[in-house]
């Protein structure tokens, strides 16, 4: 039971990643609206940023899985 709660807490890292990716995408959209000619560069840096932000969610998820399956 406690393991399940721990896993749930670990998965809360997804909140940060979600907010971070939301902010990054919003800013990127703004930037593209302001400078459509730089869309390619903005998109590539946004993807990298999103991937980095997403990594935290993934770490949380793996921690949760590890808690459930290995504990």
């Amino acid at each position, binding site marked *: 039971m406690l393991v399940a709660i721990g896993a749930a807490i670990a998965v809360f890292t997804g909140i940060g990643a979600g907010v971070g990716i939301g902010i990054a995408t919003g800013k990127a959209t703004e930037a593209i609206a302001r400078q459509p000619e730089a869309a390619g560069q903005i998109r*590539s840096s946004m*993807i*990298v940023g999103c*991937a980095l932000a*997403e*990594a935290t969610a*993934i*770490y949380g*998820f*793996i921690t949760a*899985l590890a808690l*459930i*399956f290995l504990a």
Partner: protein
Amino acid sequence: MEQIKEELTAQLENPTAFTIPIFGGIPVSQSVLVSWILIALLALAAFLMTRHLRQEKPGRVQLVLEWFVELINGMCKSNIGGHGRSFAPWLGTVALYIAVANMCGLLGLTPPTKNLNVTLALALTSVVLIYGAAFRFKGFKGGFRQFVEPVPVLLPINIMEIVIRPLSLCMRLFGNVLAAFVVMELVKLLVPAVLPAILSIYFDIFDGLIQTVVFVFLTALFIGEALEEA
């Protein structure tokens, strides 16, 4: 709950496909076997597609190949700089491998990238490439100097990065594929039809390609950073 857990555990294992009976037996895991199949397919496709290359009036297949190669070359050049061209074939190979490995679920094969060891190997080669690049192109001294840049105080952090970078590269790829797989399994348990097919397009194709781009892009970025003239 227990049933799902057991089923998932069974799915997530990395079973050994067979054992080569030399040197006391070398186990070949299923991921490696699938990788061999993918490598064979890739090599065959590349061999067949590049047989009739023409310098003038390229065919449709050749245009796709040229687009891909130029994409990789351009990405290496913009992120790594002058030496980018020498890294392009390797990064292109890694991109092809990760892409087909992520998407081979569509063919009914188990994605090799679902195996932590495969992504770990990918990340390790990337790290060897990143830190080796500095030694190769900046000399022995320049290779060591990258650990005390921009200021010597950052030495511990730079050394920690040697571990953190492959770990994050490896975990990101593995976690994404694993998460996609687990979510797909859960969805299949709840809704057995239609929805899994739609979701598999997102997880297998879109997410697979995004992770490929991210992996190669980050590797190129790190190499560019290592080769940056101080």
